[in-house]
C-alpha cells in the first residue's frame, strides 16, 4: 500500500505534488543512490584491495623517486597526501563522470528520466556515497603510506584542515556532476576522456609536487581545478613550516573553493536540464553503446 494516499480524480491533479512530498521523494532518491556505494564498502573486498593498493603503488613509486633524489622528507608527505586525494579524483572521474554513460549501457538511465525525482538527487546520492566510500580508501592510503614511509605531519589547525577538506569535496564532486552530463553527451568518447583526466590532471594539479613548481600553469589550474586548490591549501595546513610554499594564503584558497562549489553545482544543474531536454527530444540518450 502506498504511503501517499491520493484523492486525485484527474492525471493533472495526481501530478501536483506538495513541496513536502517532493522533498521527501528526492531525499529518498539521494539515500537510495548513496546506499549501494556505502554498503559496497564492506561487500566488495576486491574494490578495497584495488582502491587502496593501486594508489599506494603510485605513491610508493614517487616516494622512491624523491628518496633517490635525496629530497627533504616533507616531500614524501606531499606525495602521500596527493595519493590520498588521487583516490577522490579517480572516484569523481570513474564513478561520477563516467557513471551516467554506464547507467545508460545497463538500462538504468531511462528509469532515472522517468522516475518522479530530480536527476540532481541521483547525482547527489552518487556523490555522497562515493565520498563515504572513497574516504575510507583515502584514509587507508594516508595511514599505510605514513606508517610505511614515516611521514611526520605538523598540523596547527586541525579543524581548519578538516574544513578545507570538505570545502574541496563540494566543488570536486560538483565537477563530477557536471562531467556526468557532459560525458553522456559525448558518448563513446567518454572512456578516452576519463583516461585523459588522469595523468594530465595529476601533472597540472600538482599531485606529486608543490603546485608552485609549475607556477604559470598553476594560476590557471587554481581557477578551474578544485583538486589543485584544495591540495595546495591542505599541504599548507598539514605541513606547517615547510620550505615549499603554497600558491596563495589558505583563506584565499578557501574562498576560491567556495566560489568553485557554487559555480560547478549551478553548471551541473544547467547541464542536466539540457540533457533532459535532449533525452526527450531525440530519444537517443537511452540507446546503448552510442
Amino acid at each position, binding site marked *: 500500500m502506498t504511503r501517499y494516499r491520493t484523492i486525485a480524480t484527474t492525471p493533472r491533479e495526481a501530478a501536483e505534488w506538495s513541496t513536502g512530498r517532493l522533498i521527501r521523494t528526492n531525499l529518498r532518491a539521494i539515500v537510495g543512490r548513496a546506499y549501494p556505494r556505502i554498503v559496497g564498502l564492506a561487500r*566488495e573486498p*576486491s*574494490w578495497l584491495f*584495488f582502491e587502496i*593498493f*593501486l594508489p599506494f*603503488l*603510485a605513491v*610508493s*613509486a*614517487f616516494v*622512491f*623517486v*624523491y*628518496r*633517490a*633524489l*635525496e*629530497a627533504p622528507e616533507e*616531500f614524501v608527505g606531499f606525495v602521500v597526501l596527493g595519493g590520498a586525494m588521487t583516490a577522490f579524483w579517480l572516484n569523481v572521474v570513474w564513478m561520477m563522470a563516467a557513471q551516467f554513460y554506464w547507467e545508460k549501457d*545497463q538500462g538504468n538511465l531511462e528509469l532515472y528520466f522517468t522516475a518522479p525525482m530530480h536527476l540532481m538527487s541521483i547525482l547527489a546520492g552518487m556523490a555522497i556515497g562515493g565520498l563515504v566510500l572513497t574516504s575510507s580508501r583515502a584514509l587507508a592510503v594516508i595511514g599505510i603510506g605514513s606508517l610505511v614511509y614515516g611521514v611526520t605531519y605538523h598540523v596547527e589547525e586541525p579543524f581548519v584542515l578538516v574544513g578545507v577538506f570538505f570545502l574541496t569535496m563540494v566543488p570536486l564532486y560538483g565537477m563530477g556532476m557536471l562531467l556526468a552530463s557532459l560525458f553522456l553527451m559525448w558518448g*563513446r*568518447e567518454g572512456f*578516452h*576522456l576519463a*583516461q*585523459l583526466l*588522469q*595523468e*594530465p590532471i*595529476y*601533472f*597540472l594539479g600538482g*599531485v*606529486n*609536487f*608543490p603546485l608552485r*613548481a*609549475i607556477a604559470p600553469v598553476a594560476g590557471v589550474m587554481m581557477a578551474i581545478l578544485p583538486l589543485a586548490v584544495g591540495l595546495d591549501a591542505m599541504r599548507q595546513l598539514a605541513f606547517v613550516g615547510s620550505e*615549499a610554499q603554497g600558491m596563495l594564503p589558505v583563506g584565499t584558497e578557501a574562498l576560491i573553493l567556495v566560489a568553485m562549489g557554487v559555480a560547478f553545482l549551478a553548471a551541473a544543474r544547467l547541464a542536466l536540464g539540457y540533457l533532459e531536454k535532449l533525452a526527450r527530444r531525440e530519444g537517443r540518450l537511452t540507446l546503448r553503446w552510442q
Partner: protein
Amino acid sequence: MIDRAAVRGVTLADAWRSFRTAIGLGWAVESNWSDPFLFFLYTMAKPLAAAGILVVMFQVITQGRNPEFLQFLIVGSALWNVVFGVMAGLVQSILEDRERYRMIKYVVVTPTSLFPFLLGRSLARVLVSFVAVVLTLVVGVVFLGVDLRPNLLYLVPATLIGVTAVIALGIFMAGWCLQLRQEAWSYPEAIAGALYLVSGAIFPIDVLPAWLHPIAYASPTTWWLEASRRGLLGHGSPGPTGAIPDGLVMIFLLVSTAVVLPLSLAAFAWFIRRARRAGLLDMVTGS
C-alpha cells in the same frame, strides 16, 4: 566418413589471416570510434604528462643539477608505455571481446586459434604505446637536453628480446584475467604498477628495500629497461645496476625472457582450456 581436410587443425596461413583481420579490427575499435583529434590528444597527453610529473619533481629537488638522472627518468618513463600498452592491450582486448562485444566465444569456435587473434587485436594499442615512447624521447631531447647516443647493435636485440618478454607477460595476464569474475579490468594496472615499482623504471633499484631486490632482479622488465638505457644513452642506471657489464645485462635479459616466455605460453594454453571447461568464455560479469 571423416573429412580429414575439414579438421586438419590450424595452419600458418589460417593463423596469419586471423592475425591480419584482428589487426584491422583492433585499430577500428581503438581509433575509428573516436574523434581523431581527441584520440591523438588522449594518446599523447598521458605519456607526456607522466613524464612531466617526473621532470618537475626532478627540477624542484635538484634545480636541474644531475642531468644523468633526468635522462634516466625520461628513458624509463618513455619505455614504460610499452609495458603498460602491451599488458593493458592484451587484457582489455580479451575482456572487451568477452564482456562488451561478446565475440570471444565465436572466435574460439572458428577453425583458427585465439592466440593469433588476440595478438592482432591488441597490436593497435601496442603500436600506439611505441608512438608514445618516441614522442616522449623527442620531447626529452628537444626540450630537456636528453643526450641520446644510440648503439643500435645493442639496442635492437635488447628491444626485440625485451618486447618479447613483455608480450609473454601480457599473454599470461590475458589468460589469467579470463578466469576472474570481478575486477579483471584492474589487474593489468595493478601488475604493471607493481612491476613499475620493482623494475627500476623511474628510480634505481638500490633505493628499494632489500627484500624486493630478488624480485627486481628476476624480472625481465628490469633487464630490458637497463639494456635499453645502455642502447639509447650509452650508459646504465645510476647505482650498482649501472656497474654491471653490458654483456652480462644482455645475458640476464635473455635468460629471464627464456624463462618467462615458455611459462607464459603454457599458462595461457592451460587458462584457455580451463575457460572452455568452466564456461568462462561467454561469461558476462558486468564489471
